């Protein structure tokens, strides 16, 4: 295993994250040692980015063989797809680490900080192992370690009763998902001798239809559970909000993308498209995920739950792209497939950037305003200008507005739907264009949701004393936020820099695909539009400069108070009213009567969303299993004669079986 420059970088990355950083952290007590370990983690992430970029260009993919160590073959390869996701993981890890240093210093005690950073580096390592694994054993090991380390990071935060319930749901769903992924891997075995990705690729071609469908379904279920697609999204709005903000940024930003990586690796690399109906299945689930995700997100007023639901929505959009690409592959239209896959992967990268930016923003809010409940914030743009601007960039990107990176990938997804109309010989030419409507609705609702999120949190009057005295976040936090915001804007205006390598990567995955010209046209026109908008707005800004302060007109009342402002619950009221069927709200209005005949002492209004997946889907399953177990427990009666009866019955039944066989 000759160690070229890239290999040494990669080994350095693994060694630091896996061994050196955790050991130094757990063993060390001094502040200096922890600083050194964090610097190591940061340098490892930077090394990761460099390894990703260089190995993207190097033709023979980098291969790190650990077969001689582990009982089963364990090797890591950084081919083009892995390099892209490795870049995603490491490039988001840098700002999150930078943000994490001040955040954890303020929030955690000495010992807890050590443990958090140790698990943080192991969490990062597990994700890198997942995206660069090139054997089934390595992938599954990384996959389960990812869940374990993220749970450890959540549990280090604290252990109240409902946190335990949420962590339990998270663990159970992740384990069930991992079992599905393992099944998907193992189903290859009848046709391939080992679980190395190369063997799986070969086997993928010769697998008969039935098994191919089974592999696709289990892979889709397994990775769908990790991605948070609708029926399996239950854990996402429960696990992300209770994790510390940098960790939920990592979980939402990167961990969800490992599910996309896994699905792409299975659907495109191994199965080369999967059964013919695979695209439609993915489209249906993705559309439901996108729509319901954002609709649940709009009604939330805890910022972290809102962001968690918006992650569900964005995963819906990514899988819309993947579904379209699968439809194209099924209809043998490689160009369209390349376009849709590029859109999906780019949206994965964009979502990693702006979602971690928004979660870090929430971290900054919880640090300085000590609350993430939208109804208690307000007027923070004045008090935290830099954080505010960064979060504004994040909100614009996630709403998919031009000049920001969200728009580029949504635009490409729109164009891939439109390209679907050229598939004349299948139903796709109607289904795909109609998907434009679905994605437009999702985009519109997302814009409304994040107008509310940013507007209520940062603009207008502070709604609580805590928001009143909020001060700007420390430098480390602001640096992290600005790095990500810069990333969002840069990709938004110069998408070519990411689109060219992405198209090269996609041509590897979709055989026979040329360069979709949409990727070139957008890369040409967007800079001009950016120039035009910035030019016009700056020139007009120069023309008007006279400004005078004047109190807002309050219809003659003495003065406006923050209670007169629109809170987040009210802001989403029209949309909640229109989509009432999705929420089935149960509304409670209580009035405290007072001595005055006309004016009650106080009126409180409470509207709770009653559609709960846990009650409708998961509770019955768990209850039936537990009732079976209780029935079985009654068999253990405690009476020795019954035990002996069991043995004799077993013996007699076996003898009878033998007799009549």
């Amino acid at each position: 295993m000759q160690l070229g420059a890239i290999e040494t970088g990669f080994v350095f990355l693994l060694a630091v994250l896996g061994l050196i950083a955790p050991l130094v952290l757990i063993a060390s007590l001094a502040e200096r040692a922890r600083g050194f370990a964090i610097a190591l983690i940061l340098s490892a992430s930077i090394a990761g980015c460099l390894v990703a970029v260089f190995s993207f260009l190097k033709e023979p993919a980098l291969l790190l063989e650990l077969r001689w160590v582990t009982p089963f073959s364990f090797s890591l390869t950084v081919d083009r797809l892995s390099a892209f996701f490795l870049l995603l993981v490491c490039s988001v890890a840098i700002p999150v680490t930078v943000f994490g240093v001040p955040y954890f210093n303020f929030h955690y005690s000495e010992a807890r900080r050590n443990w958090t950073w140790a698990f943080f580096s192991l969490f990062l390592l597990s994700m890198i192992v997942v995206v660069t694994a090139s054997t089934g054993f390595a992938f599954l090991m990384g996959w389960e370690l990812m869940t374990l380390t993220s749970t450890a990071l959540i549990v280090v935060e604290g252990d109240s009763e409902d946190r335990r319930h949420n962590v339990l749901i998270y663990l159970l769903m992740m384990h069930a998902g991992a079992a599905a992924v393992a099944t998907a891997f193992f189903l290859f075995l009848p046709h391939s001798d080992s679980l190395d990705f190369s063997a799986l690729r070969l086997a993928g071609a010769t697998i008969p239809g039935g098994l191919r469908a089974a592999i696709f379904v289990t892979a889709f279920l397994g990775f769908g559970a990790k991605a948070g697609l609708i029926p399996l999204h239950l854990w996402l709005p429960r696990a992300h909000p209770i994790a510390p903000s940098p960790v939920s940024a990592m979980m939402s930003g990167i961990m969800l993308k490992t599910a996309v990586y896994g699905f792409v690796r299975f659907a495109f690399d191994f199965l080369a498209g999967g059964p013919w109906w695979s695209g439609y299945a993915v489209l249906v689930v993705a559309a439901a995920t996108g729509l319901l995700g954002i609709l649940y997100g709009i009604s939330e007023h805890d910022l972290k739950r809102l962001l968690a639901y918006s992650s569900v929505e964005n995963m819906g959009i990514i899988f819309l792209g993947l579904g379209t690409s699968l439809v194209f592959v099924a209809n043998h239209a490689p160009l369209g497939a390349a376009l849709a896959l590029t859109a999906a992967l780019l949206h994965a990268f964009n979502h990693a950037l702006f979602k971690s930016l928004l979660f870090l923003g929430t971290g900054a809010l919880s640090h300085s305003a000590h609350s993430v409940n939208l109804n208690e914030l307000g007027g923070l743009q004045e008090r935290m200008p830099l954080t505010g601007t960064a979060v504004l960039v994040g909100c614009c990107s996630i709403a998919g507005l031009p000049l920001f990176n969200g728009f580029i990938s949504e635009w490409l997804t729109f164009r891939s739907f439109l390209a679907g109309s050229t598939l004349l010989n299948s139903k796709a030419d109607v289904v795909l264009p109609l998907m434009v409507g679905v994605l437009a609705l999702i985009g519109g609702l997302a814009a409304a949701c994040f107008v509310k999120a940013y507007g209520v949190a940062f603009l207008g009057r502070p709604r609580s004393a805590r928001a009143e005295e909020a001060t700007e976040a420390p430098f480390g936090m602001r640096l992290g936020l600005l790095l990500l915001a810069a990333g969002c804007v840069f990709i938004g205006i110069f998408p070519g820099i990411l689109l060219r390598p992405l198209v090269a990567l996609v041509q590897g995955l979709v055989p026979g695909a040329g360069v979709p010209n949409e990727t070139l046209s957008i890369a040409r026109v967007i800079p001009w539009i950016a120039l035009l908008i910035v030019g016009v707005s700056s020139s007009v800004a120069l023309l008007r400069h006279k400004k005078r302060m004047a109190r807002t007109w309050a219809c003659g009342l003495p003065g406006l108070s923050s209670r007169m402002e629109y809170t987040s619950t009210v802001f989403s009221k029209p949309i909640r009213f229109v989509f009432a069927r999705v929420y089935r709200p149960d509304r409670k209005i209580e009035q405290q009567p007072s001595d005055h005949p006309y004016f009650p002492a106080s009126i409180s209004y409470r509207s709770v969303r009653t559609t709960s997946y846990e009650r409708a889907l998961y509770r019955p399953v768990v209850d039936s299993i537990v009732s079976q177990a209780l029935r079985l427990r009654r068999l253990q009666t405690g009476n020795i004669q019954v035990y002996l009866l069991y043995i004799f019955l077993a013996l007699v039944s076996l003898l009878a079986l033998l007799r009549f066989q």
Partner: protein
Amino acid sequence: MDLIGIASGKVLSSFSVFLFLTVLLLAVARRISTSILLFSLQSAVITAEVLATAFQEKLPEAYIVGALVLVIKVILIPRAFFSLTKRLRTVRDVKASTTPAQSVFAVAAIIYLSYAAVHSYGQAVHVPDDALAAAVSLILTGAFLMLSRKKALMQMLGLLVLENGIFLAALITTFGMPLVIEIGIFFDILIGLLLMGIFTFRINDTFEHLDVSKLRRLRG
């Protein structure tokens, strides 16, 4: 000399009838002492069987095994049982969970079943049917006794009847295992009984009764 030959031939052909008799009597026995006596009678019949086959098949080892069976199962174990029942001072009743009529019906069914089971294997092993049937019925009756009798001592007795059945089956089909193995098995049975005795004393001290079906604290 052929007198012994004739006697051994007689024993070989007719011992299964005696065994069936003891099995039926065991089913109806009400008191522990009668059950113990029946067990020793049963063991005596088996000793005779062992000695007869030893004589017929000219196997010197079988004589030692026969002596062992005689000493342990006919004399030693019943005496130990009687001293145990005396020392434990418990009600001498067998505390059966099935009425005598039901027990007899069950044993009859067992005998029929053993004949049916043996029929298919009998010719594969070309051994007289009723001998093997007697062994199998002993096994099944031992099992039935353990299932239906609630007394700890009776469970031990059921176990011994079961082991008698297995020993007899081994004897009939293969004229006995190598000597060391037979001795080892007897040694194990003896120690097993010793331990069961210890446990019965402990049950008696802790629970003041020997009713096994009441031991139901460990559930779920």
